[in-house]
């Protein structure tokens, strides 16, 4: 099997000088696929995501993008390499308009980004409608669309989402997942952390179940959903 497109390999590390949260944890995603990280609270899901994006230093292990070792790059440099990241909280500029949020997403681009912006508007039509409205005035689901749209503005090859459906209603969640599938279909790899494990695994090509910073199970989304032990421990039967 050839090397995956983006991979965090045997990552071990924690925040600052604190204790290690991740232990030999491996997470990967292929082009145009959706990979989901699930697991109980405190399993290090978000930490794994942040480690891949370079927001904490790894003691051991490395992060590779398209075969290139990017372990030493800063988050900003990883953005330049084609990674997009949507944090869980405070992931939009609340005082700025929707359009300005997207423009700030494209801040590092020197070329004309109007085409990308139109693509984002096509993907999220509601944003086109509300583009001159202050992002802070939008509903939870719409805010998440702004956040994803902002990250898409750099034309990333990988989009990383930290709990994109936290705090939104089930209907909005389904809608968001549909959009995420659309994004993946356009060829962008998706790596996301999800609390709603069952729904997330249903749309995932690949799933990683973390427990206490270690890989507990991994496999295709279908396999994991079918796995008795996974169901019993994490999906509530």
């Amino acid at each position: 099997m050839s090397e995956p497109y983006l991979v965090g390999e045997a990552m071990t590390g924690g925040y600052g000088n604190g204790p290690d949260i991740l232990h030999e944890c491996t997470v990967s995603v292929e082009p145009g696929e959706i990979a989901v990280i699930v697991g109980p609270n405190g399993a290090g899901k978000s930490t794994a995501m942040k480690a891949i994006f370079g927001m904490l230093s790894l003691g051991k292990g490395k992060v590779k993008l398209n075969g290139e070792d990017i372990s030493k790059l800063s988050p900003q440099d990883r953005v330049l390499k084609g990674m997009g990241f949507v944090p869980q909280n405070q992931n939009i500029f609340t005082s700025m308009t929707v359009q300005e949020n997207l423009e700030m997403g494209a801040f590092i681009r020197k070329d004309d980004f109007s085409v990308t912006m139109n693509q984002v508007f096509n993907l999220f039509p509601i944003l086109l409608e509300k583009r001159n409205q202050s992002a802070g005035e939008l509903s939870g689901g719409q805010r998440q669309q702004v956040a994803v749209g902002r990250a898409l503005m750099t034309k990333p090859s990988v989009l990383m989402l930290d709990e994109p459906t936290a705090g939104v209603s089930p209907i909005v969640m389904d809608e968001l997942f549909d959009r995420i599938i659309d994004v993946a279909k356009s060829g962008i790899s998706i790596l996301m952390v999800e609390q709603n494990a069952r729904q997330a695994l249903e749309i995932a090509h690949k799933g990683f179940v973390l427990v206490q910073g270690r890989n507990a199970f991994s496999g295709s989304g279908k396999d994991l959903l079918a796995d008795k032990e996974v169901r019993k421990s994490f999906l509530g039967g």
Partner: protein
Amino acid sequence: MEFLHAIIVLSNFVVIPAIAYGSQLALGALGVTLVYGILRFSNFAHGDTMAFGTMVAILFTWWFQSIGVSIAPLPTALLALPIAIVVTAALLLGTDRVVLRFYRKQKSAPVILLIVSLGIMFVYNGLVRFIIGVGDQRFSDGARFIISARDFKKLTGLDEGLAIKTTQVITVITAILVVAILFWFLNRTRTGKSMRAFSDNEDLALLSGINPERVVLYTWLIVAALATIAGTLYGLDKSFKPFVYFQLLLPIFAAAIVGGLGNPLGAIAGGFLIAFSEVFITYAWKKVLMYTLPEQFAPSGLMQLLATEYKFAVSFAILLVVLLFKPTGLFKGKSL
């Protein structure tokens, strides 16, 4: 006729001076609010930054006057203004590089930066006093009035005069221009938007590849311009005295807080609110009341609510009221 006279007296002594003073405060408060929004601390050195900028403007005014350069009827200080802004910007950027950047890298608490700004305030204050002294400096030249009280009376045949000083008109026009340019910059340009983004959500701004040092650089450049312009306009309108500029800190901060710290629109509204309240409350209303009230109610005293020396009490009272009733300010604070 009586009513018209009352309006003229009111405009002459209250409305026009308050508009000019309000513009100066608004420009000062904008500087404070920008530093607060982007560098995230209350900059107590702002009054002395204004004093420094004004001092440079005065020195160059004197130099221009000595070599006979003039833009009469406009005051020479306007010609010196751009140079003063450049010098002040150099000072602020130097201060940032030598002093403030260290604390930024350390991610020090805002209150530590506030104390650091006290040190900077001392240094600037000493610098200004060292160079130009503590005395009162008047540096306004050119035409003194657009229309003097006597001309106005002659022109209209009214008993009351309306004087409009050149400096007042210059203040208002400059303030409008500066604010228009600032808002255009913040809302329309890439750099301006990146500053707003940085102020709104620093982490996300970093994720978006916005370079914080560049944002800080632009902030200081703008603050230097705002402080120098505000200070020079104030000095032209009244006079320049280092200690008075230090004392302006209180109404300026009151304006920024009343409007909502970090909110430029709020800073402007706050500036005018403070200025109008100050002038309203310390003005002797006797004349206006004499024109508006029936004779038997004519006031005997000056009808001054508070002595002029208590003008700080006005800023302070407004500040307290806002803190009690709406601690985030009239406009939503902490957003650029």
